[in-house]
């Protein structure tokens, strides 16, 4: 084979090869160290989380048979042989699922309004006082970090069982998450219109109404829609702690091993979530299309 590349003499080559192997070895050492640390953390976590691969291996049959049982009616027949028996509680479950959707809807709108109100004092370009900004931002962070189901637990203690604690919990969490996003949107606006309104003597409220809102509205609605999708999922489980919606019936069915009921409700939830995701994705694309030609 003809050689196309000229190779320098050995004396010249030796230091280059040495440097290369040094560099390669250093990289390998780094990788090995990283892997060792990861393995150590993994081992500690495995002990902490009581990971039992043997149990899992022995009982993985339970997992497949669980789904097998999910698809069986009480009399042992497959669920799809008797849809009437399978979906015997359709009316009740539809009502509860509707309640779940309403909880998600009301909570998203309430949370979005709260986030909109909080966004102006939290953004750097509209709020001059750093202390106010700091306070509002910490509040939003608190609402964002505490999971909605923890809020729901506390609110159930205060408001009693029902949809109200669920709505408030999801709304509060939504205010936290949307507040952060809205603030980022508001901080990225063109300040020209704001200065224009301010120079004609417009108040802070007028500035927000006529200069800020037209710039950010479609973006905010798009974020709120995205949050609605997430809240629908969240609202399905909020009933686990007694805060309304289909979660109440679902957890009872799972705990009491009403297998066919569980599969029917899960199927309804999955279908609803998928349909809502699809509609909302369409709407968001529309919104983006509406915004771009401007």
């Amino acid at each position, binding site marked *: 084979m003809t050689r196309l590349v000229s190779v320098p003499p050995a004396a010249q080559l030796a230091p280059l090869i040495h440097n290369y192997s040094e560099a390669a070895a250093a990289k390998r050492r780094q990788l090995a160290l990283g892997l060792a640390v990861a393995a150590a953390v*993994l081992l500690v*976590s495995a002990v902490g*989380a009581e990971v039992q691969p043997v149990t899992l291996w022995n009982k993985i049959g339970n997992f497949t048979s*669980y789904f097998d049982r999910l698809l069986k009616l009480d009399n042992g027949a497959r669920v799809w042989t008797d849809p009437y028996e399978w979906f015997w509680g359709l009316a009740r479950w539809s009502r509860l699922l509707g309640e779940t959707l309403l909880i998600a809807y009301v909570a998203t709108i309430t949370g979005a309004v709260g986030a909109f109100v909080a966004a102006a004092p939290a953004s750097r370009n509209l709020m001059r006082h750093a202390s106010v900004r700091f306070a509002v931002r910490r509040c939003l962070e608190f609402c964002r970090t505490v*999971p909605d189901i923890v809020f729901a637990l506390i609110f159930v203690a205060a408001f009693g069982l029902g949809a*109200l604690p669920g709505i408030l919990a999801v709304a509060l969490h939504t205010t936290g998450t949307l507040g952060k996003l809205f603030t980022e949107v508001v901080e990225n606006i063109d300040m020209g219109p704001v200065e224009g309104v301010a120079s004609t003597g417009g108040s802070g409220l007028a500035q927000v109404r006529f200069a800020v809102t037209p710039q950010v509205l479609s973006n905010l609605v798009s974020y709120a829609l995205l949050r609605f999708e997430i809240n629908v*999922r969240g609202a399905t489980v909020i009933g686990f702690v007694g805060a309304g919606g289909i979660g109440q019936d679902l957890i009872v069915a*799972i705990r009491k091993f009403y297998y066919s009921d569980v599969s029917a409700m899960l199927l309804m939830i999955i279908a609803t*979530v998928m349909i809502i*995701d699809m509609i909302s994705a369409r709407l968001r694309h529309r919104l983006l299309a509406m915004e771009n030609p401007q």
Partner: protein
Amino acid sequence: MNRSGGLHETLVTQGLELFARDPDVLKPGLRQKIPLLALGTAAAGVYFAALMALDISPSNIISGLGRLTNIAVLMFPPNPESWARVLLYLGALGQTLAIAFIGTLLGAILGCPFGFLAARNVVANRLIHFLSRRCLDTVRSVDTLIWALIWINVVGLGPFAGALAIMSSDLGAYGKLFSEAIEAADRKPVDGVLSAGGSRLHAIRFGMLPQVLPVFASQILYFFESNTRSATIIGIVGAGGIGLQLFEQIRVLEWQQVSFLILMVLITVAAIDWTSQRLRTAIIGQRA
């Protein structure tokens, strides 16, 4: 107004003249506003109808707020009462982190092949592509808590069920995100490996993987952050971690303990956010 009366008058008359000349430009008719108004009214209408349907009245809210204020007052100051309890809670917090870590890792490992299967540029078969996407969507629509309940039936109560639940619910999201990262990858290194006589597996290993690995790593870190939040609540259904303690303390109305636990969670989540942000910039910055 009196001070600049003359100027004011001039401005108003000029404004009116302008208005009279180009009414169409300056006064956008109702017609343009109709879609937006209709949408807004519809949204508000559904909102208030929903409030009625859910049986929510101002009196409920006010009386509940009163009780909530009482609870909030009872929460201060956060107080674990004894060091034994602090240790117990710290152990539970460690367990939560372990659940999140194991769940994230297992989900990532299992999500990888799904990501490649669902990526359009790796598997050209439309049917496989479609089926894997729909499977991932289905897995994703089931909440972590529901997965936890299912896994409790398989491996029994405890943190292991929690880790498996986090793995399952992440699997769907990982598959989707990974497949998007793979589809966005540059095609040239893959072609290079193939043209040098490499097999398809070689092309994925040497052409694709170096490109997508940093993206995967930063997404995994992001998921670890969000999973610590999920892992704090997974104990509510009996799958281990600090959620179990939180649930117990709320049930027995020990509000000072509750606020202490929430404080612990807040601090931990903040610390993890900070660390993972550092790591993420390190990973992406190093390779970019």
